[in-house]
């Protein structure tokens, strides 16, 4: 289970732009580095990140070898309805992690 740090508001007014910031603990091994034995370490990175707001995709990103370990992603979305935002990370070796946050939207 990977570790995550998520910062998002729990309440917002309808139409308000909210910021969501997420960090995940991941080595992001590039696939180009040699280990102590001189052999190239196999690539182990997160390839995609996405955020679904009540099922609708509101943000996604592709990550590559150049991204540092423990990647931090910040993005904005518009608060439309109360519900759940699901943040998910997927990567090499079947890596998959999802975290959900609740958002209450007031008129």
């Amino acid at each position, binding site marked *: 289970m990977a*570790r*995550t*740090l*998520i*910062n998002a508001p729990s309440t917002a007014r309808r139409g308000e732009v909210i910021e969501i*910031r997420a*960090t995940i*603990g991941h080595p*992001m091994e590039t696939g180009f580095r040699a280990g102590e034995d001189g052999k190239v370490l196999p690539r182990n990175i997160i390839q995609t990140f996405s955020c679904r707001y009540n099922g609708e995709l509101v943000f996604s990103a592709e990550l590559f070898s150049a991204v*540092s*370990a*423990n990647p*931090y992603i910040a993005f904005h979305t518009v608060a439309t309805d109360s519900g759940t935002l699901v943040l998910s990370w997927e990567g090499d070796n079947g890596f998959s992690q999802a975290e959900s946050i609740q958002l209450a939207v007031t008129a």
Partner: protein
Amino acid sequence: MTRILALLLVCLMGTAGAQTPPPKDSRRSGFEDMGAATQAMQKDDALNPGMLWVQDGEALWKQPAGVSGKACLSCHAAAQSSMRGVAARYPAFDTGLGRPITLSQRINQCRQQHQQASPLRPESQDLLGLEAYVALQSRGLPLAPPDDARLDPFRQRGQQLFAQRIGQLNLSCAQCHDSLPGKRLAGSLIPEAHPTGYPVYRLEWQAMGSLQRRLRGCMSGVRAEPFAYGAQELVELELYLKTRAKGMTMETPGVRP
């Protein structure tokens, strides 16, 4: 004449009565010389990657380990109160061993003696996590190395090591960190080397690391053979550095470039 005397008296009283401000601390934490983005990363717990290790530490604090089936929590209760100010006092003298030990050595000692568990490997994610979680409870407090006379010989040896030229480059710690702080070594700023934020998340490492890792990094930088993790010399250096930074504010988990 009387008027002059009276004036003089008023002046004297004025000086005596005025609050003399405490002498300004001229020591600088590495934090003050970092870029704005790196400072922001340290200041915001939601951004600080060191908090990932703190999360690990918090989980381990509550998790039973070893034959005893006890967790840290079983004896020490909530870390927020029991561990407040503890990290600021380490390295401390251990009566049983007759020498100072660091916070991570103390954690492993507790694991072996009280939890009857195997010690955690130096620089392992678990040990750094526990150390960071314990040290976080002292964030904002001044570094308070103990006034323990038994530590004095070790502290002196640490000071000697700090001034000792080592490696192919034949440099001592003091030559850079006492004599040239604020200047540059290639592109990097030379800090005053105050260990206020350890364990720190270093962007260069892309991970958290202990003060000993940092010290070893400097040693291989001057092309010396670094002391092994847990070596007495590193503990003595740590003890000296903590004394040198006495009173400075703890920042754990720090972020450094």
